[in-house]
């Protein structure tokens, strides 16, 4: 085993080791200190660079679980592990309701994430995916408030749908690849059936918060603790993009206008999410909507990749985009958390300045990571369209900054230790911000870098921001002239809009169900049920018995033979003298078929054979056979 393989194993096992370490009572009291450490091996592995040849096989586990770090995995792992580490460090400083519980769910989520990113085969990927998805429920509902629980329930419900869709798709794929075998992720998409691809799309789309499947995202992100929101938005939702990327890279072909529709859908989602986010006032919710908007862009990029227009450039752009968005969004979330606890003016200013930088980067300001991502975007769509998306994001960011700046520090989040608390978590936040600004440049290839640095690109990058500034200024001016314009009447969320209110028919259905079940427990009913089952079984057996046996062409002839015998029970005793066998079937049918009146048997007969002559023929042949 060489060094890379060892590092690979260590990276995947680190969260589990941390979980085991929690068995020590001393560590249990300061559990969150393990959070950044658990992501460290993965970060080091990602920094070392991709080495697809140095994969490892875990023999016997699942179907020979395979781990490897290829280029695609690294594109996700490097920013991902970095954000996990920094957000973990932040979580260590952040006031949490139950640090130990948070740490356990965090480590489980991280374990799932690392497993799925480093997986080289489908089953391992899926196992990590499921672990991450369901462990994250504990992060979403950490505060335990009513809103958090509701959001958690929505999250869990939608994720379950996504999980089942994925499960079906996985079973489909493995079935085609050889039942019980787990195919390699590389080259997985080639020749995939479109139904399986659609199921994969549902699963990944739900995770990604793709337009139309994003319902859970704003609500879950708004209620989770700040560091959890940061990784949810910055890392976890992108796993859906990883899955889609694996499929498309592996040769999945979307038929017809699929790619175009995908791109259009993504762009529509981008603008819709901005419009939705502008109506929100909670800073974290605005950020969550911004994530939905950005994921719309990711979907658009995936559509472009599927269309096959310069895929290499699109992949490169996507990698930059994911890194840049993950870290910038992480910085925004962490900064919002700090801002909510910071009361000191100076600190608040510094924080706001950092948030402006991160927001500008998201809005694709020149020289930022966003500009690089936009450069990739322009390979497949007109420049002005890419610019307008920048304008939309900038508008949303301005709205966010305004709300964040005016948002008073939350009293309940303020730690009681007083004094120096304002700077808690500053370091991880600063590091995230700096990484978010620099890492995209490091990841981008030279052509993208050059493209983003030429003067026209700088100009192209500037006008969307200016437009956004003009629009925002205009809105502000209008608002100050005519107060009330453009303000949406605060919609009463209504106490029951998301309350656990089952549909009206449900209670009645449940009542009916319970009553019927109670009936099924009564002995006379059991008797009837058992008799019916005997008849059903006998009929099924008789109908499906091979017609050849009784030399009657139609399928239901066996029923006929049985029925004829039951009839003959009283009519032809001679038949039974030769052999007891036929009598038994008659006995069985007659004895247990109490419900079935004798008169019904001829009915069965008539159904089985059309003519009377035919019946006689059947019965006759059976008799000879039985006699023989």
């Amino acid at each position, binding site marked *: 085993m060489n060094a890379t393989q060892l590092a690979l194993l260590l990276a995947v096992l680190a969260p589990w080791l941390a979980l085991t370490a929690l068995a020590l009572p001393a560590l249990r009291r300061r559990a969150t200190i393990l959070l950044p450490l658990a992501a460290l091996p993965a970060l080091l592995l990602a920094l070392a660079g991709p080495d697809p040849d140095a994969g490892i096989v875990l023999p*016997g*586990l*699942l*179907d*020979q679980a395979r781990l490897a770090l290829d280029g695609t995995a690294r594109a996700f792992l490097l920013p991902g592990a970095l954000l996990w580490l920094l957000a973990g460090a932040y979580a260590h400083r952040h006031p949490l*309701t*139950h640090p130990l*519980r948070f740490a356990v769910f965090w480590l489980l989520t991280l374990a799932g994430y690392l497993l799925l990113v480093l997986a080289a085969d489908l*089953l391992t990927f899926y*196992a990590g995916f*499921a*672990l991450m998805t*369901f462990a994250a429920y504990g992060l979403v*509902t950490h*505060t*335990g*408030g*009513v809103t958090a*629980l509701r959001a*958690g329930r929505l999250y869990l419900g939608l994720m379950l749908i996504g*999980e*089942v869709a994925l*499960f*079906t798709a996985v*079973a489909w794929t*493995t*079935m085609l690849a050889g*039942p*019980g075998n787990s195919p390699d992720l590389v080259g997985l998409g080639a020749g995939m059936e479109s139904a399986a691809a659609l199921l994969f799309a549902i699963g990944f789309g739900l995770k990604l918060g793709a337009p139309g499947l994003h319902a859970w995202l704003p609500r879950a992100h708004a209620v989770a603790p700040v560091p959890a929101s940061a990784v949810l938005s910055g890392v976890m939702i992108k796993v859906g993009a990883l899955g889609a990327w694996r499929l498309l890279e592996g040769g999945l072909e979307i038929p017809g206008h699929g790619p175009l529709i995908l791109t259009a859908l993504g762009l529509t989602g981008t603008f819709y999410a901005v419009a939705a986010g502008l109506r929100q006032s909670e800073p974290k919710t605005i950020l969550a909507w911004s994530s939905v908007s950005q994921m719309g862009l990711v979907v658009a990029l995936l559509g472009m990749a599927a269309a096959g227009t310069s895929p290499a450039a699109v992949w490169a752009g996507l990698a930059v985009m994911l890194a840049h968005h993950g870290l910038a969004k992480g910085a925004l979330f962490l900064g919002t958390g700090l801002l909510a606890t910071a009361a000191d003016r100076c600190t608040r200013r510094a924080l706001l300045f950092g948030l402006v930088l991160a927001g500008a980067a998201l809005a694709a300001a020149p020289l930022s990571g966003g500009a690089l991502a936009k450069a990739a975007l322009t390979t497949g769509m007109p420049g002005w369209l890419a610019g307008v998306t920048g304008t939309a994001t900038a508008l949303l960011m301005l709205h966010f900054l305004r709300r964040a700046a005016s948002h008073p520090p939350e009293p309940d989040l303020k730690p009681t230790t007083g004094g120096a608390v304002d700077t808690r978590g500053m370091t991880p936040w600063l590091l995230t911000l700096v990484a978010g600004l620099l890492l995209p440049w490091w990841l981008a290839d030279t052509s993208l870098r050059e493209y983003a640095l030429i003067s026209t690109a700088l100009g192209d990058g500037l006008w969307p921001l200016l437009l956004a500034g003009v629009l925002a200024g205009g809105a502000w001016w209008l608002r100050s002239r005519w107060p009330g314009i453009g303000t949406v009447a605060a919609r009463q969320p209504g106490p029951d809009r998301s309350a656990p209110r089952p549909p009206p028919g449900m209670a009645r259905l*449940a009542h009916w*169900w*319970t009553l019927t*079940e109670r009936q*099924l*427990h009564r002995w006379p009913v*059991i008797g009837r*049920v*058992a008799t019916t*089952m*005997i008849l*059903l*079984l*006998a009929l*099924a*057996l*008789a*109908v*499906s*018995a091979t017609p050849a*046996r009784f030399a009657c062409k139609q399928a239901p002839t*066996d029923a006929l*033979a049985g029925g004829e*015998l039951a009839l003959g029970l009283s009519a032809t005793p001679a038949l039974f003298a030769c052999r*007891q*066998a*036929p009598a*038994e*079937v008659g006995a*069985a*049918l007659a004895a247990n078929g109490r419900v079935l009146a004798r008169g019904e048997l001829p009915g069965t007969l008539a159904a089985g054979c059309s003519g009377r002559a035919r019946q006689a023929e059947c019965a006759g042949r059976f008799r000879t056979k039985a006699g023989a």
Partner: protein
Amino acid sequence: MSIALATAMVVGLPLMAAAVAFAHPRRGRMATLGTGLLLLPVLAVLVLENLRTGPWRQDLGGWAAPLGIGWQIDALALTLLVLTTVVALAAAIYRLAERRLVPDSRQRRYFWPLWLFLWGGLNALFLSADLFNLYVILEMVALAAVALIAAAGGPALAAAWRYFLATLLGSTLYLLGVALLYGQYGALDIALLTGRAAEEPVTLAAAVMITLGLLLKGAIFPLHFWLPSAHGRAHAAVSAVLSAVVVTAAFYLLVRLWFGPFAGMLPGLPAQLLGLLGAAAVIWGGVLAMLQRHLKMVIAYSTVSQLGFGLLVFPLATAGALPDQAHAGMLMLLLAHGLAKGSLFLAAGCLAWQWGSDHLRRIGPPMAGGSLLAWIAIALAAASLVGLPPSGGFVAKWWLLESALAARAWPWAAVIVLGTFITAGYLWRILRDPLRLGSDDAAVVPAQGQPLPIPLAMPRAALLLALAAIGSGLFATALRSAFAAGGLAG
């Protein structure tokens, strides 16, 4: 160790231990633990032999089939034997620890003999290849199970009575079928009958009777009337063994017979009908599990629902596309379900002890001082039941779904998918309240104060089974090849 001796020990050890425990009640505890610990290496020997040589048959006393009684040892039998041993051992550990909590009583004296008797009966059931011998064993298992249910006293007596009537009726119907088969073919051995049985009205009638009897014993919808109350009211350890193995045993016989002597009659409508019953069981039992208010009742109804998945093997294996995968999936389902269900019942017993009731609203969250281990066991077992990778339940559903998709049998695939949602629904009922850990919701906080302390071995036994349920999925491929080498039914 000679293989014949090892096979004999599988049945002989528990029965002898039962005799010892009956004669010397003080030795009951030692006899039970000793049996479990001795059976493990014995089964290991058998499994290794099975992997080496494939399935084999052993005639008792050297008498060949038409006259003597035979035992068959294959992957199906061995898997269920291992399941029985593991669950019975864990439940026995739980029960031994639990006894520190209850004062001595008269019934205590007969608990271990009955327990061992049940154990030996189950082991014999999985080995025997003789239909009449199986009848006697079925009765033996039924009597021991009824007595163990009744040992809980109170409302469990009525439940035991219902179970008793249902299972006796089932045995009688089964015997009727056996009599018909013997009258026609003059043989009782399953292997012999497989060769001789033809599609004749008598075989048909026998198949109907035997199937109905076993459906009753296996609590397959709509004949599940006895199961929820019996499993919900018995002692947790008894419920664990009943739900994990005893019901499975009836299902096992169904599989043995339908893929043995009756195999010729299965394709077509009968298989579809059995599958339909399974689908109905999955939905009916699952919805009722969602509607229960008591933890143990939820788990009991879940048994009704989960066995329905097993019945899907009949249509899927006869569909022809991937029959081996369907068989392997069914076997994996029995294994994973048994382990997870045993764990759930034991964990539910722990919580019921701690909080004085197993009402879902009375059980406090783990942070309220209850046993965290029990909750972890429940969470892990639930993950396996619902089919989260890489648990055993996942692998079972995965294989079944593969087989359904390969056969393009969309309705059965839909049942598996729908069943997953329903399973998630009722497990959510169990896990919902403990997951709202920091909640100030008053409805969740149990009425009474601090939970009772319980011996640590109780939740540990539950956790052991839950870990086994997860672990059985982790080594799925190894198990799959072991099934193939050991000879799957069919």
